[in-house]
């Protein structure tokens, strides 16, 4: 239901995306943009964003009619889907006109009696749909259901913003039995091309969504918009606000470290906060957090979320068991390609079974990679799958054992990280101040000269970039260095414009040599030095986050050899 979302004030750091999506009808009308394919990792908050857009438009005196629809596996039979889609639209339309949310949920008057007198055309539409249903014309029903928002937009002279969630399921719409007709998603072409009905489409994983738009009539009808993870401080604010509502005290330093471990994923953060509350925790101490985490990855909401996606993707219990073993084996082999070739022999299953299992795991987002199969960099998913493996394959699952295993596994993570902060005024060579400060940090971390100099270069580049592009009045850049024995993280914040690193062209020395513009090496340098480079938008600031995992041979182990 579109109203089932968190309070607007707790929905942090998505102002820019909200504004853009709400302006979509206007932008569509002026041909600035088309439909939006909203992408992002599982749990990154795509559904929440759609619901926030819906609620915001609903309560504003807006010239746009909002419509939210989430695909469900129970309503994928074409006739059932058409009925559900049509009814949902009519309910939401009437609810929006009357500003009466109860109509959306089906409470109150029967639908036909809720139709306002000025919208008698709605009754005609409902009668026509009923006739198609009685005639068993499911194509007609499907077309009528999908055309309903377009019809309403034309009658009212107001655009309808259509928000389709879990759209990856559209590829599974069927006529009589599952899998009998795979091109029904193509029926969305007509409403998606209506200028009065801009669509925001989301779902996961990206590969499943993109394949719908690549292979059928929908090709080229939507533009990608990527919902990036929440920045650390926004993720912490989100967690803090949840805890405050549930009467739980949290320690910022511990929480920040923990939400970072959760990859700042809103779904994980919410689940842990609720778990703390269910376990009657009054404080979110480090021990409490890991205790809740162990519970979440084995029996909690996070486990339920991933295991339902897993069962949805692989329905046959025998294949599910193979998939768990395949996944476990790939994790243990650290994604090594040769390990995939050895799977049939090691697991005692056919090559075909392995191939099909790998494909199903990839379609559901449990494996990644444009080509090949890569294990996602999501420790939470890995722990959920490990717990499933312990329960269903090893038969050795015990909550206490899992908790101990997790505490031991993340003991290094539990060691507090140091944090250093500094503010630089954007001035010539101010980056040298940051470089000098880093020299001392590198000494404290006992980094060897080579790696320290490289990171210094990456830092200099990031500072120059921030200073060159820092807009705003204050012309300052803000640096934070988080250090732990195995990890260095540098956050560089400025009022500069957000940019997509994927959109930056990779410079070629042969081209630059003959070009008048010889600059543009900064991002390439940074990316070649750091393990991870993230560009994040935090309200009115842009953050460049540099992450380096410190390897054993990058640290001086004999203190006599320390530089300086």
């Amino acid at each position, binding site marked *: 239901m579109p109203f089932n979302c968190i309070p607007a004030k707790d929905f942090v750091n998505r102002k820019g995306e909200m504004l853009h999506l709400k302006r979509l009808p206007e932008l569509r009308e002026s041909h600035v943009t088309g439909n939006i394919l909203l992408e992002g990792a599982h749990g990154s908050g795509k559904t929440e964003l759609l619901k926030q857009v819906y609620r915001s438009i609903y309560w504003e005196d807006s010239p746009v009619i909002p419509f939210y629809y989430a695909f469900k596996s129970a309503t994928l039979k074409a006739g059932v889907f058409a009925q559900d889609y049509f009814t949902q639209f009519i309910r939401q339309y009437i609810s929006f006109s009357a500003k009466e949310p109860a109509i959306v949920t089906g409470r109150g008057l029967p639908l036909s009696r809720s139709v306002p007198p000025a919208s008698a055309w709605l009754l005609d539409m409902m009668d026509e749909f009923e006739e198609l249903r009685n005639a068993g014309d499911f194509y007609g029903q499907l077309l009528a259901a999908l055309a309903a928002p377009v019809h309403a937009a034309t009658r009212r002279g107001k655009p309808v913003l259509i928000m389709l969630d879990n759209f990856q399921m559209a590829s599974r719409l069927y006529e009589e039995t599952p899998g009998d007709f795979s091109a029904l998603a193509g029926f969305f072409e007509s409403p998606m091309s209506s200028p009065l009905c801009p669509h925001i489409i989301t779902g996961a994983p990206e590969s499943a969504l993109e394949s719908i738009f690549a292979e059928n009539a929908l090709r080229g009808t939507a533009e990608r918009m990527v919902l990036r993870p929440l920045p650390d401080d926004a993720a912490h604010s989100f967690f803090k606000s949840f805890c405050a509502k549930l009467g739980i005290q949290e320690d910022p330093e511990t929480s920040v470290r923990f939400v970072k471990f959760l990859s700042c994923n809103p779904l994980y953060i919410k689940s842990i906060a609720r778990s703390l509350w269910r376990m009657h925790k009054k404080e979110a101490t480090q021990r409490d957090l890991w205790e809740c985490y162990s519970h979440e990855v084995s029996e909690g909401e996070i486990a339920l979320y991933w295991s339902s996606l897993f069962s949805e993707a692989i329905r046959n219990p025998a294949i599910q068991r193979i998939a768990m073993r395949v996944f476990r084996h790939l994790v243990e082999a650290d994604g090594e390609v040769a390990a995939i070739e050895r799977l049939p022999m090691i697991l005692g299953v056919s090559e075909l079974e392995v191939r099909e299992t790998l494909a199903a795991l990839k379609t559901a987002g449990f494996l990644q990679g444009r080509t090949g199969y890569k294990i996602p960099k999501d420790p939470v998913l890995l722990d959920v799958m490990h717990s499933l493996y312990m329960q269903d394959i090893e038969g050795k699952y015990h909550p206490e054992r899992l908790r101990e295993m997790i505490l031991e596994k993340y003991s290094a993570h539990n060691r507090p990280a140091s944090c250093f902060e500094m503010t630089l005024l954007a001035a010539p060579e101010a980056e040298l101040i940051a470089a000098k400060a880093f020299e001392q940090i590198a000494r404290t971390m006992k980094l060897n000269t080579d790696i320290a100099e490289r990171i210094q270069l990456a830092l*200099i580049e990031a500072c120059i970039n921030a200073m060159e592009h820092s807009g705003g009045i204050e012309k300052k850049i803000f640096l934070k260095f988080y250090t732990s024995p195995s990890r260095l993280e540098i956050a560089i914040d400025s009022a500069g414009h957000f940019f997509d690193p994927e959109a930056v062209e990779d410079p070629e020395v042969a081209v630059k040599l003959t070009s008048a513009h010889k600059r*543009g090496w900064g991002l390439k340098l940074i990316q070649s030095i750091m393990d991870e480079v993230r560009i994040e938008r935090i309200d009115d600031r842009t953050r460049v986050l540099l992450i380096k995992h410190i390897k054993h041979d990058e640290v001086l182990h004999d203190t006599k050899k320390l530089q300086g």
Partner: protein
Amino acid sequence: MTPKNFRVSSKEIGDTAVIYPQGYLNNVTGESLVQECTEHIEKGTKKIVISFSKTELINSIGISMLLSIIEKLLNTGGELCFTDMSKMLKDTFEMLGLTQYITSFDTEAEALNYLKAVSHP
């Protein structure tokens, strides 16, 4: 030694110019370096050694200035050698692809020895 400015110094050994960018090789030092090299090239020097023995730090703008020098020298059919680079500098130039246009040596003496044997019309 010609102390034209505090960021770049140079000397001439036979038909070769040896140039020392000092401190932080950024836009300011980079421009001085380009100017210094240009003066030598315009005087007809075709062999240049850039010694990084006095260079403490570099940034991407400094690297783009080095590209300008490579371009100028390539256009005159000259030869450019880099010497005394830290491991970080060597790896960076290698990664960016600069090393295919220059010859690198550990020391200035090795570079001068090499250039002695190179003849330019």
